[in-house]
């Protein structure tokens, strides 16, 4: 039995931690941490319990924060987290992922960095910047950000990244060489007849199915997709969903067929949940059919949005599912999405949600 569950929240004004026991019925909130810096992504190493926060501050620039005592104390570093002199400086760190003893960080403007000492110092993974498509990458609404970072747990040289709005890229050699993997995903914002480019898609979030490293799901600006071959070919799974637009995607901790999404009403319609009624949409068959999960979620006047990294699951049985809204509310389900409770509702805008189960 797990001793406790931590829900790690990155917000526009600091990191927060919501904590509960394995029952996940009552929650205690701690924070703000990281000197109230904007924290785009807060993650934890499930083996050691170390927590890292990816941030960027308008005054002080980018840094990765670190806590080895479950959030009680924090340090920060940006040693090496820089492009070459003369190049556009890094504004913020947007995503973190651990693989093969290394910690990877995705930054804005889009690039990838690696730390081999637990986040104390960083080295630029230069191969991505050398891709011939680089001069043609265009920023999405939040800037040219590398927001999704997925590592094959069985082969840490295999990494997929998502950049808004350059699309999905893949490396099989630890970052030396990269190739776009966007075949089958639309770019509705391109001229007619040019809607399926090699790169330039606006991927919003990219996740990997548990136990199936070649199965990827992505929520895109223009549709929801699944790939069963490591992103070489994507198929639409948006049929049955209320819209083609949304930001986050979260996989089940054990079932590769189960995926959670929060579709929004469209890119130019306010980006709220459809009809102002909150729902998490769940598939149990890899996107063939979808079910709206609404029990406990606001069904009236809910003009809420959920950002790209603001949904996660935990590894308990049954799995917990969590999402945070851009208006600062955190919702939790302790039964795989069947029912929900509002954990807290007056936080700063929630940018990311991740979990840590401590035994």
């Amino acid at each position, binding site marked *: 039995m797990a001793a406790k569950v931590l829900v790690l929240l990155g917000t526009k004004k600091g990191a927060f931690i919501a904590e509960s026991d394995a029952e996940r019925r009552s929650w205690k909130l701690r924070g703000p941490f990281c*000197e109230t810096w904007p924290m785009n992504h807060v993650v934890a190493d499930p083996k050691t319990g170390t927590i890292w926060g990816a941030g960027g501050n308008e*005054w002080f620039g980018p840094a990765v924060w670190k806590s080895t005592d479950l959030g009680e104390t924090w340090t920060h570093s940006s040693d090496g987290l*820089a492009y070459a002199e003369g190049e556009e400086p890094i504004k913020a760190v947007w995503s973190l992922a651990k693989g093969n003893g290394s910690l990877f960080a995705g930054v804005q403007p889009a690039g990838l960095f690696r730390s081999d000492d637990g986040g104390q110092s960083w080295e630029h993974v230069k191969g991505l910047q050398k891709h011939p498509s680089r001069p043609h990458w265009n920023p999405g609404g939040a800037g040219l950000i590398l927001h999704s970072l997925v590592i094959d747990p069985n082969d840490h040289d295999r990494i997929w990244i998502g950049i808004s709005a350059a699309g999905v890229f893949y490396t099989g050699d630890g970052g030396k060489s990269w190739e776009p993997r966007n075949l089958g995903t639309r770019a509705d914002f391109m001229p007619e007849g040019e809607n399926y480019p090699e790169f330039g898609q606006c991927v919003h979030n990219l996740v990997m199915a548990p136990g199936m490293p070649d199965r990827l799901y992505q929520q895109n600006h223009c549709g929801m997709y699944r790939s069963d071959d490591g992103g070489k070919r994507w198929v639409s799974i948006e049929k049955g969903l209320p819209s083609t637009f949304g930001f986050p995607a979260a996989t089940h901790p054990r079932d590769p067929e189960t995926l959670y999404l929060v579709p929004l009403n469209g890119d130019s319609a306010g980006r709220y949940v459809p009809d102002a009624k909150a729902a998490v949409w769940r598939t149990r068959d890899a996107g063939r059919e979808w079910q709206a999960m609404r029990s406990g979620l606001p069904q009236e006047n809910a003009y809420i949005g959920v950002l790209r990294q603001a949904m996660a699951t935990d590894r308990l049985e049954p799995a917990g599912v969590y999402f945070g809204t851009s208006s600062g509310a955190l919702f939790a389900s302790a039964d795989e999405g069947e029912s929900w409770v509002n954990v807290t509702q007056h936080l700063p805008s929630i940018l990311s949600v991740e979990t840590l189960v401590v035994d």
Partner: protein
Amino acid sequence: MLGDAPSRTGKHQAEAAPIVVRLPGVLVDLFPGAPRRVEMTASTVKEMVDQLDKSWPGMRDRICDSRPAIRKHMNVFVEGERATLKTKLRPGVEVFVLTAISGG
């Protein structure tokens, strides 16, 4: 250098009066033990930042970006003027490092 230690006196001071660096609270909060007022000998803003970084590793990255330049929303004032990294510092001068208006 450092902290709120008494000013150096005598012959050494006559040779090169130390500059006084005033740091914003929100910056020193990021570096436990760093004081708001620092005395040092430096002839340019760049040298000053280098010395701050030597005493509190990482402080350079908070004040400067990788261009390298003073960050867009940080200000360094020397004798009433906004400075750059190349700005020269006269002995005894007071340098103010400030956070600009930013955020929402």
